[in-house]
């Protein structure tokens, strides 16, 4: 048994050598003191502006949280649609203000629960949704015109979103009134999370089609959440997370404009999703730089006229990869610091991880502690009263400027490669992230970076006894449900709708109407994805050397 914990007396901690060089978590050197000399070229009006004013460094609203707190949006989803429906109702009762749904791996990869590759995976990392029937079960009794729902789905986002739209319609909710987000960010899948199905070109087409459909049909929906979260989890630095995410954003803007939309027709609905890691100032600088860079890109690079197009609106999740399996209660503290960084950084919504997530999906108790963490920050710490309360700190402003500069350097490199799709095909962002991840691992093993409870302050201690165990019977029940569905639906209609989808995929044209028709006919996710796999092919990444 290879235990990672070595028994023994707690050690006295790392030695502070005289004149030791400090760096941020991402390895950026940090001086012992910052003064006005570090901000020689700094201008309040150019670099900051007031909150709610271009370039929005200090926040996208004039009054920030004084007018309205961020949305507390805890990500959840496990097991069957019935289990998840129960958990969503529970969270709303506990004071959560927005829903956020996690899907299991077969769903993320476009396979039904009865596919051979789904063996052992059904309901494990999220909820299993194979058809409109599952979606209706998962959303039963939820007030869809009043809650906003975020769905973490990428490669098959168009199909899952179509299921949500049809379920909403059938429950009497108007598409004009429903609000929510689909992640739908395929570029970061190739870069980091690796849950891709099709090659980049047809995948981008699906994203563009859903953005265009959304611009016309669902005015309050965010059709994409351009995500740095997973890039960071894969081991990137803060700067890489920011640069690759915003450059992905630029790539989407280019593709949708090429499809004929004016930038102001869709840019106000683009949203972002960032990670919040342990290094408080580095994170706050990243969030502020994100707003400044995006506003500048939209106004200067694209000539966007609508001020709403300039806003970098983002959701934040605390860093899963920072959580340790050892001494899990330390994770509550890490998460609180990271959540604080998200709030000081002006996030629009926030997910706080639970203390047991280095082991499993959270138990109800652990998820409640995570939500309470946000409520303590919101209602007891005082930080929500003032917009951008750290603004003007010599250190923070210097870090924000440096982060911004490093971000533009990456833009130049990727532009020179011909854009993000080309850079991905070269393996550029993937390699950059791997180098950063390896450097960090080395630093931890050499104790240049301390991880409390892992490489220092180690004790032999009990792990939390309660781990959420997913019921083993779920896979069989999901398979039985699918078999029953395939017997009772109108299979001729299913066939016609799938043929139409395949035809549209081959001939060109927006895929959303065909996907919606397939969903209404109760075609399954796997059936729709199989049709597209046949037309588009699948993606294999360049080999890792």
């Amino acid at each position, binding site marked *: *048994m*290879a*235990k*990672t*914990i070595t028994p023994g007396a707690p050690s006295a901690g790392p030695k502070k050598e005289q004149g030791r060089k400090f760096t941020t978590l991402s390895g950026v050197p940090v001086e012992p003191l910052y003064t006005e000399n570090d901000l020689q070229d700094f201008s309040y009006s150019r670099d900051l502006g007031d909150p709610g004013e271009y370039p929005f460094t200090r926040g996208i609203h004039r009054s920030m949280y004084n007018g309205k707190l961020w949305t507390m949006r805890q990500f959840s989803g496990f097991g069957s649609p019935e289990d998840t429906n129960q958990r969503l109702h529970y969270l709303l009762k506990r004071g959560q203000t927005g829903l956020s749904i996690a899907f299991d*791996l*077969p769903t*993320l*990869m476009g*396979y039904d629960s009865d596919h051979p*590759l*789904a*063996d*052992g*995976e059904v309901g*494990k*990392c999220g909820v299993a949704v194979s058809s409109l029937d599952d979606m209706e079960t998962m959303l039963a009794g939820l007030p869809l015109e009043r809650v906003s729902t975020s769905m973490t789905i990428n490669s098959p986002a168009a199909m899952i979103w179509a299921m949500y739209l049809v379920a909403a319609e059938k429950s009497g909710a108007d598409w004009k009134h429903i609000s929510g987000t689909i992640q739908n960010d395929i570029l970061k*899948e190739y870069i980091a*999370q*690796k*849950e*891709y199905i099709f090659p980049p070109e047809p995948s981008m087409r699906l994203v563009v089609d859903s953005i265009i459909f959304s611009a016309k049909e669902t005015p309050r929906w965010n059709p994409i959440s351009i995500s740095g979260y997973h890039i960071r*989890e*894969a*081991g990137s630095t803060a700067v890489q997370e920011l640069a690759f995410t915003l450059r992905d954003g630029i790539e989407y803007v280019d593709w949708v404009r090429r499809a004929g939309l004016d930038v102001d027709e869709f840019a106000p609905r683009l949203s972002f999703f960032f990670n919040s890691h342990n290094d408080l100032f580095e994170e706050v600088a990243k969030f502020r730089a994100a707003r400044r860079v995006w506003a500048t890109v939209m106004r200067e690079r694209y000539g966007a006229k609508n001020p709403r197009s300039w806003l970098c609106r983002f959701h934040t999740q605390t860093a899963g*990869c920072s959580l*340790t*399996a*050892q001494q899990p209660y330390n994770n509550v503290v890490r998460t609180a610091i990271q959540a604080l960084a998200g709030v000081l950084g002006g996030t629009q919504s926030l997910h706080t991880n639970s203390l047991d997530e*280095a*082991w*499993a999906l959270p138990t109800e108790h652990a998820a409640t502690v995570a939500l309470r963490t946000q409520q303590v920050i919101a209602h007891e710490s005082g930080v929500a009263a003032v917009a951008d309360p750290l603004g003007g700190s010599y250190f923070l402003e210097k870090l924000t400027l440096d982060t911004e500069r490093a971000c533009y350097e990456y833009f130049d490199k990727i532009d020179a490669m011909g854009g993000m799709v080309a850079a991905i095909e070269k393996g550029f962002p993937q390699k950059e992230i*791997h180098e950063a*991840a*390896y450097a960090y*691992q080395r630093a*931890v*093993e050499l104790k240049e970076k301390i*991880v409390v409870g*892992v*490489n220092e302050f180690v004790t032999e201690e009990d*792990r939390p006894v309660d*781990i959420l165990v*997913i019921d083993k019977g779920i896979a069989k029940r999901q398979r039985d449900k699918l078999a029953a569905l395939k017997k009772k639906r109108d299979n001729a209609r299913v066939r016609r709708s799938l043929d139409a989808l395949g035809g549209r995929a081959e001939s060109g044209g927006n895929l959303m109407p065909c996907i919606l028709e397939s969903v209404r006919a109760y075609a399954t996710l796997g059936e729709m994805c199989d049709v597209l796999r046949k037309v588009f092919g699948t993606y*294999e*990444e360049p*080999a*890792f050397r």
Partner: protein
Amino acid sequence: MPDRRIRVIVAKPGLDGHDRGAKIVARALRDAGMEVIYTGLRQTPEQIVNAALQEDVDAVGISILSGAHNTIIPRVCQLLREAGMPDVLVIVGGIVPDEDIPGLKESGVAAVFQPGASTQEIVDFIRSHVKQAV
């Protein structure tokens, strides 16, 4: 003493795409002088065992974070035995709760490296446990 370098397959079965750990381990084993073959993502147990046979490896390292380890890993061990490779060292890394470890060891896994393990531990374990024909 064996004069050939230790050969290891680093494999990613299951549907999850989380390859940060697998790639770090692959690189650390290379830096330690081993020959490493990284399979890429979403390999079936059959594909992994085929590669182990083709590449004539001493060890198979399986990285899995999706929670499907109890389904997938015993299958890999069984196929290795059926393919006439009972001596190949099988090690596992990823999110594996304590209570699942005895079952995995029973199926033929030599060690499970949980979150927080160092690459040095993994290198040392392979070096001291690989059975090489002399």
